[in-house]
């Protein structure tokens, strides 16, 4: 494992300067959402920038390739959380702190509050946004299993209009999404959910840790399950859901779940550990 945070491990060029330099990078500053969408259409490709809690980690470590950015942070229209026609609507710029404090989210989607509380520490929760968590497209994103299990809808906007994509069709592969370069994630729509909601994250420690396994479940007449950090993208465990609907035992459901996962060994955990923990979490959820 590399010795993190030692100077010799940082990307330093021949003049001794960090390659995470900003000198050759530019930032476009839209005044409104429509302004931002026009910039994406006419002046792209641009990388949208919100709370920067992921983007600046790459910048600081010299691994950020992009050079042209679009500042979304001031677009308050994308920050609202409300309920209309029995649908919870969460703006993409809502921070994790906004999610934790929102009465609407507390009442309708408590598992999202649970997920937001386990992201980073307070400093990260104050800046990181749900839209950024989704757009960053890490398979370990903590809000992702919640959106998957809730059958959320992603609202994508471009200068030409908007489209709604089921969250479970949003990712097409590792760090790949259906979002086009001229589109922004405007927000998420989550229809009313029945049943008990459940969220668990297993990491090295409670705060400031990236998930080894993250899982969200809803239990009503039927069971719904979604997991992160166990496949190239967040996954809905549809086969496990199906066998449970047919009355499978916990052991059989665990076996089906193991067949659905494709975890890897990486610096945070091993595939074997992730499989074992995912199966244990499923048993815990079903027994609770």
């Amino acid at each position: 494992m590399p010795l993190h945070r030692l100077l010799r491990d940082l990307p330093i060029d021949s003049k001794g300067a960090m390659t995470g330099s900003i000198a050759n990078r530019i930032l476009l500053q839209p005044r409104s959402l429509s302004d931002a969408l026009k910039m994406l259409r006419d002046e792209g490709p641009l990388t949208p920038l919100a709370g920067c809690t992921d983007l600046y980690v790459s910048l600081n470590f010299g691994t950020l390739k992009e050079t042209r950015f679009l500042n979304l942070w001031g677009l308050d229209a994308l920050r609202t959380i409300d309920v209309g026609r029995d649908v919870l609507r969460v703006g993409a710029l809502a921070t994790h702190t906004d999610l934790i404090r929102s009465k609407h989210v507390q009442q309708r989607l408590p598992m999202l509050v649970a997920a937001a509380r386990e992201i980073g520490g307070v400093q990260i929760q104050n800046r990181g946004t749900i839209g950024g968590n989704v757009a960053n497209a890490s398979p370990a994103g903590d809000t992702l299993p919640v959106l998957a299990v809730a059958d959320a809808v992603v609202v994508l906007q471009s200068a030409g209009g908007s489209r709604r994509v089921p969250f479970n069709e949003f990712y097409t592969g590792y760090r790949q999404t259906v979002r086009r370069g001229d589109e922004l994630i405007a927000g998420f729509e989550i229809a009313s959910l029945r049943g008990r909601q459940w969220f668990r994250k297993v990491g090295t420690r409670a705060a400031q840790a990236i998930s080894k396994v993250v899982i969200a479940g809803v239990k009503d007449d039927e069971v719904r399950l979604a997991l992160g950090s166990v496949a190239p993208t967040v996954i809905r465990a549809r086969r496990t859901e199906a066998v449970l609907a047919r009355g499978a035992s916990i052991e059989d459901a665990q076996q089906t779940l193991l067949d659905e996962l494709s975890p890897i060994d990486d610096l945070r955990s091993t595939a074997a550990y992730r499989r074992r923990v995912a199966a244990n979490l499923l048993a815990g959820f079903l027994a609770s």
Partner: protein
Amino acid sequence: MRLTLNGKRARVDVHPLKRLLDVLREDCRLTGTKEGCGEGECGACTVLVDGAPVNSCLVPAVHVDGARVTTIEGLGGRHRLQRAFVEHGGAQCGICTPGMIMAAVALRRKPSLEEIKVGLSGNLCRCTGYSAIYRSIRKAR
């Protein structure tokens, strides 16, 4: 770019993507804010933006245009928390201390131990002096 820095109006002329941490340390000469990890793990660079703790290594300058920024210097040196950290052994090597104190400033009055632990969960102390840090905060808040 204009901001209110430690209660006073300030103007800085910097690249919009420059890290707030570097703006504070290099352009404003406020070196009380420390850099630890540069990736939002350690909280050593914690400052308040409009009253909320953030990691200044992950905030572009443009995001504090028009905002109120408070650094450890803004507490003046005789703040109850600063005195408590001295009196109750809350500071060991000291590198995490400004960030710990800025995270603690944002806590509500009379926080429970659990609230202190959650509020400071984004701050790491490599001397592992957490008990004394929590004790200092309980005495001061």
